[in-house]
C-alpha cells in the first residue's frame, strides 16, 4: 500500500497552482496526481516523493491536508490490461472509489493508484491473483 496525500482546494482562482507551487518550493516531486471535484470545491490527490515534507509545507501555507492509503498496482500496458486487473475486484464484490494513473517509464507496465472501500480485502485478492502491488519506496524507481 502507498500513502496518498489529499488537499482541500476551494473553488477559487489559482488554488491548485498555489498548492503545487508550495511543493515545488520545498523540492517535493509529484509522482501522480488527480483532482476530484464537485461544483464547489476540489480534492487534489497526490503521491509525492516526500510525504512529511509535503504535508508540513502545505499546512504551513494554510491548506488542509490528509494522509490516506491507496493501493498502487502495476498492470500490463496492453488492451484489456486494466480491465482484467479490475475484474479481480469485481469478482470479490469490492467497490472502487476512484482510480488514477502514474506516468511510468516502464515500457510494458502501467501504474495506477486505486482507492477501494475495503483496502485490506482488495490487497488480499490482488495478492491471490498475482497482481503486482507497489510500495512508496518502489515508486521512486518508476
Amino acid at each position, binding site marked *: 500500500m502507498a500513502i496518498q496525500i489529499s488537499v*482541500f482546494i476551494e473553488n477559487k482562482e489559482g488554488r491548485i497552482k498555489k498548492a503545487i507551487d508550495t511543493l515545488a518550493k520545498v523540492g517535493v516531486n509529484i509522482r501522480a496526481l488527480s483532482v476530484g471535484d464537485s461544483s464547489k470545491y476540489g*480534492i487534489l490527490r497526490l503521491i509525492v516523493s516526500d510525504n512529511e515534507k509535503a504535508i508540513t509545507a502545505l499546512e504551513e501555507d494554510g491548506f488542509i491536508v490528509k494522509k490516506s492509503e491507496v493501493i498502487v498496482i502495476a498492470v500490463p500496458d496492453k488492451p484489456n490490461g486494466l480491465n482484467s486487473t479490475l475484474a479481480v475486484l469485481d469478482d470479490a464484490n469490492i467497490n472502487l472509489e476512484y482510480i488514477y494513473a502514474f506516468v511510468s517509464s516502464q515500457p510494458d507496465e502501467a501504474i495506477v493508484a486505486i482507492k477501494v472501500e475495503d483496502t485490506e480485502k482488495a490487497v488480499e485478492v490482488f495478492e491471490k491473483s498475482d497482481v503486482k502491488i507497489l510500495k512508496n519506496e518502489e515508486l521512486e524507481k518508476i
Partner: protein
Amino acid sequence: MFWNEKAECMNKEEKEKLQLERLKKTVKLAYENVEFYKKRFDEIGLKPEDIKTLKDIEKIPFTTKSDLREAYPLGLLAVPREEIVEIHASSGTTGKPTVTGYTQNDLDVWGECIARGLKMAGAEKEYIIQNAYGYGLFTGGFGIHHGGNKMGAITIPISAGNTQRQLDTMVDFQSDILTCTPSYAMYLGESRQKAGIPLEDINLKSGIHGAEMWTDEMRKRIEESLGIITHNIYGLTEVMGPGVAQECDEQNGMHIQDDHFYPEIINSETGETLDYGENGELVLTSLTKTGMPILRFRTKDLTSLIADKCECGRTTVRMTRITGRSDDMLKIKGVMVFPSQIEKALLRIEGASPNYLIHVTRPDILDEVEVKVEASKELFSDEIKEMEKLEKQIQASIRSETGLRVDVTLCEPESLPRSEGKAVRVIDERNL
C-alpha cells in the same frame, strides 16, 4: 472574592437610592452640556427636574446608534476637550464608526468595572493576564488593560493574533488568565492541541471572553481545550466598552455594574419597558460617566434581566446571555433566523469549525441562503462522497435548528472575513 463588596453586594434599597442620585446628576450634566440632549428634552417639554424617581427614566427619549453617528466624531461630549484623555471607536462594520471620548474619571470607572470582572474570574494582584484582545480603537484591548492596571495585576498587552507567540507566552510566563474574543480563545485551544502542548504545561485558570456572540457548545470547547473556566463579558463602545457586565464562576447571567449603568429591557417594536425575566432589547444609561454621558441607549442586544441575588453573593442585576441582536435578526423566506442558531447547528457536528458566513441573496423573487463553513482537518476526506455527506449533515443540522433549507459550502480555513478579531457573520445582499 469581591473587588468592591460594598458596591457589588449592596441591598436593593440602597442601590436604588444611589442610582437615582446618580441618574439625576447625569441627566443634568447631559441636558446642560450636550446640545443633542437639550434639544431632545425641549422637544417634549421635559426638564431634568422632572426625573424624580427611577421610573421617571421612562420619560427620557431613547438614544440610538444613528444619533451617535450623526454626532460623529465628538458631538456628544459633555466636557471641554481638555478633559478628554482617550478616545475609542466602534469598528464601523455597519456604517460610520461611533466614537466615545473618555475623561480620567471615565477611565477610572472603566478600570473599576473591569477589575470587578477580573476578580470574578479569580484574579489576584500577582496574576498574569494575557490580554489577547486587539489593542487600538477597539475597546477590548485597552478596556481590559485599564482594569488590570486598576487591580494591580500583571497585564501582558500581547493583543490579538500571532498564535505561536500566544502559546509561547502561555507556557513561558505561565499566564493565569486569558482575555480575548471567544472565537480566538477557541482557535488558541485548538492550536495548543495541534502544537502538542500538554495542558499541564500551561497554567491558565480562567478566561474572560466577549465582543461577539457565542454559545454553550463553544464555551465547552474552550474550557476543555484550555483547561479553564470561562466568563462571558459584555459591553459596547457607545456605552463604555467591555465590563458593563460579566459572569462570575456561577456562569448564570452577567452581573451588570448597575451602580454605573442603569439597565432596562424594552419591547424593541413598541419601546415599552418590560419586567424582569421578560426577553427584549437592553437599554443602558450611564450613571457616572462624565465625558460622554449616555441616556437610554438602545443596544439592540436581546436579553432579559435577573433581579435575584446570585449564588456568589452579589446583588447586582444580571443579564442573561445575549440571544441575538434586534438588527442581527434575519428574516429569510419569512422565517426569523439568528446567526447564533447557525453556530449552534454547526457545533453539533463533530469537528466542525464555528467559523461561518451567512450569505443571503435574492436572485429573483425568492431568498437564497448559502452558509459558508471553514473546513477543518477533522472534516476533510479524500472522497467527494464523504464530503457531500458532510455537507448534507450540516444542512440537516441547520434545518432542524432554523427550519430553513440552506446551501452549504465548505471553504478553506481562515478564508472567511474577520474584522478586528470580530468575525463577520452575515452578508445580506438583498435589497430589502
